[in-house]
């Protein structure tokens, strides 16, 4: 088993919280994991990426080679496109459709979404809207995580356990809300993949 995931977003959007939930689940499953993060200057609103590699055998490189990623999981639509050279011919793009506009020359959203729809395998999900409907806009990253689970070789229950583990310090209500967000994302992806 091997899943190579490119996690993409903008500095400050919290892609590392997604990585830490998957990481928690992977370590509890006794899987090997390597996860390269972006720290430093780019965290100030720049493009950030994390390479997350999970396997049942030892992993060599911290970075995913070009054309080998099984999944691009992006919390921002333009950022999903930035890493296409890493995606394998059989890989999936799972992206949030809510843009994060912090630059004056951000392209037309419709054109970005059209590019995403050109991809052979994709799930485009308005995670911010779904999270807001559930009652907390900040859960949009967990909606995205849920949407990615059909393409990650770890049982969703194990990832739910990761959510409980990571959020338990914040109280039961927060755990419940995140589990709901997770399920909403997962259902959407299963229906729309």
């Amino acid at each position: 088993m091997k899943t190579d995931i490119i996690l993409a977003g903008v500095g400050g959007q919290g892609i590392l919280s997604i990585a830490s939930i998957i990481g928690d689940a992977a370590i509890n499953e006794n899987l090997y994991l390597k996860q390269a993060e972006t720290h430093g200057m780019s965290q100030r609103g720049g493009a950030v990426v994390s390479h997350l590699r999970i396997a049942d055998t030892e992993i060599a490189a911290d970075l995913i080679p070009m054309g080998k990623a099984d999944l691009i999981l992006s919390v921002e639509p333009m950022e999903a496109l930035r890493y296409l050279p890493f995606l394998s011919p059989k890989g999936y793009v799972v992206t949030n459709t809510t843009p994060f506009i912090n630059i004056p020359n951000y392209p037309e959203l419709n054109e970005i979404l059209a590019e995403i729809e050109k991809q052979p395998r994709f799930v485009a999900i308005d995670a911010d809207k779904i999270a807001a409907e559930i009652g907390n806009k900040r859960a949009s990253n967990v909606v995205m995580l849920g949407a990615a689970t059909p393409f990650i070789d770890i049982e969703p229950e194990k990832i739910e356990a990761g959510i409980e583990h990571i959020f338990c310090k914040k109280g039961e209500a927060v755990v419940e809300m995140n589990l709901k967000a997770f399920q909403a994302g997962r259902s959407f992806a299963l229906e729309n993949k």
Partner: protein
Amino acid sequence: MQKNLFLGVEAIAQGAIDGGISGVYAYPGTPSTEITEFIQDSELATKKGIRSKWSANEKTAYEAALGMSYAGKRTMVCMKHVGLNVAADAFINSAITGINGGLVLTVADDPSMHSSQNEQDSRFYGKFAMIPVLEPSNQQEAYDMVREGFELSEQLEVPVMVRITTRLAHSRAGVVRNTELEQNALQLPGDPSQFVLLPAIARKRYKGLLEKQEQFEKAAKKSEYNLYKKGEDKSFGIIACGIAYNYLLENYPEDDCPYTVFKLAQYPVPQKILDKMAKNCEEVLVLEEGYPVVEEHIKAVFKKDIKVSGRLSGALPRDGELNADLVAKALGKETQVGADVPGLVVNRPPALCQGCGHQDMYKALNESLDKYTKGRVFSDIGCYTLGALPPYKSIYSCVDMGASVTMAKGAADAGLIPAVAVIGDSTFTHSGITGLLDAVNDGSNIVVVISDNESVSMTGGQESSALGKIESICTGVGVDPKHIRVLTPLKKYHELMVQTFEEEIAYEGVSVIVFRRECIQAAAKRLRKQKKMKDNPNK
């Protein structure tokens, strides 16, 4: 065995705690910052009484570590690669004094300059100081090498450098911890002259260091981190240094590399292994992150009939970080690339946060200087360096820590008036004070802006050595108190800020204008913490 999911920097920190350090010394700098933060936040380190407060700069950090070593205790000092330039004087000489308690210097290089102004290779510094260098290839080795590094340092009686790069620093993997080693007792060096580098003593000690080189090479030869595996195919051999070894393995997932492979993780490069390699290979490819340190070395020691390739030969790019694809190409393997990035995707450069005080300062500065020709503002290293980018485009230099003050002074000496320096609070206490003293002593006509957000923000909001001390430092250095102005950078004070700039530009001498407002990231963090305390008062 229990695996901890550690970043490379966290593995190093845990390795130092478990290796028996009594103190860590550091100045924040990406990608090294989290080493010290991890120790600061570690309950185990607190229980063990390990000191871990930030130093004013890398030089003071290194010297304090050397003092702790003098007193017999184990210590680690950490910095980013350019920080070692600041600490270089202490570092080079500490190889000659040698150590008493084990001293490990961890340096984090930044090839591809993700968050730096150059990509210098600290292995050169290791060679320059003539000390052993350890270069872990993964997080587990980072932990083990640091934990064992103190003993190695004590055995060889010199500081030991652990060199990592950004990729290892900021990548997570499972790490298994080893037992915790005890801290050393306080014990002064046996030879009272050991640390006295008067020429007569220094000459003797330097000879001693030269004599020890053979011992360092022997240690590298028998190091369990240096692996030599003879291959069936004699046409080719590969030397893979540090993390580059992983990129090699990535290309041979079935462990089916037909060539001789030398995994190099402890320096100096052991000649005996090179001799073996020379007998078994017609061509040698060097995979190394950073400068062609090993490639140059083996070109000099191999006979001419062995072809050497790497970053110098063009088999790999001369600059930038390596990856599995670049290594595949150098090995003549096929690579695949996914779809092209669509043309509409634009760059998203980092920017000052919305609501940041530096923004208000730059708006006022730009308006004040509008009537002059451009190119009069010298700046420094920190978040405010982003003032070089649109929409501000305010600054014209960013060279090294503290250079804003001194470059403004030099330009003013040359006749560029007005000349303005923009420096942050922590950068000012790191390396700006001495430059300000020069300007005061010379009566230079400059305006120094200290944009004080009361934290080291670019690296994640560490405590600034300057906190609460800036005005008294400036007065102490000799700036006329009438020309030390303190303002709050907020939109509502824009006119006042512009007016103050104009007044101080008109003054023919050294002016300091402090713009003081808490970093908004730090403020948000503080508010979250306060809320947490309120919600859980018992925690």
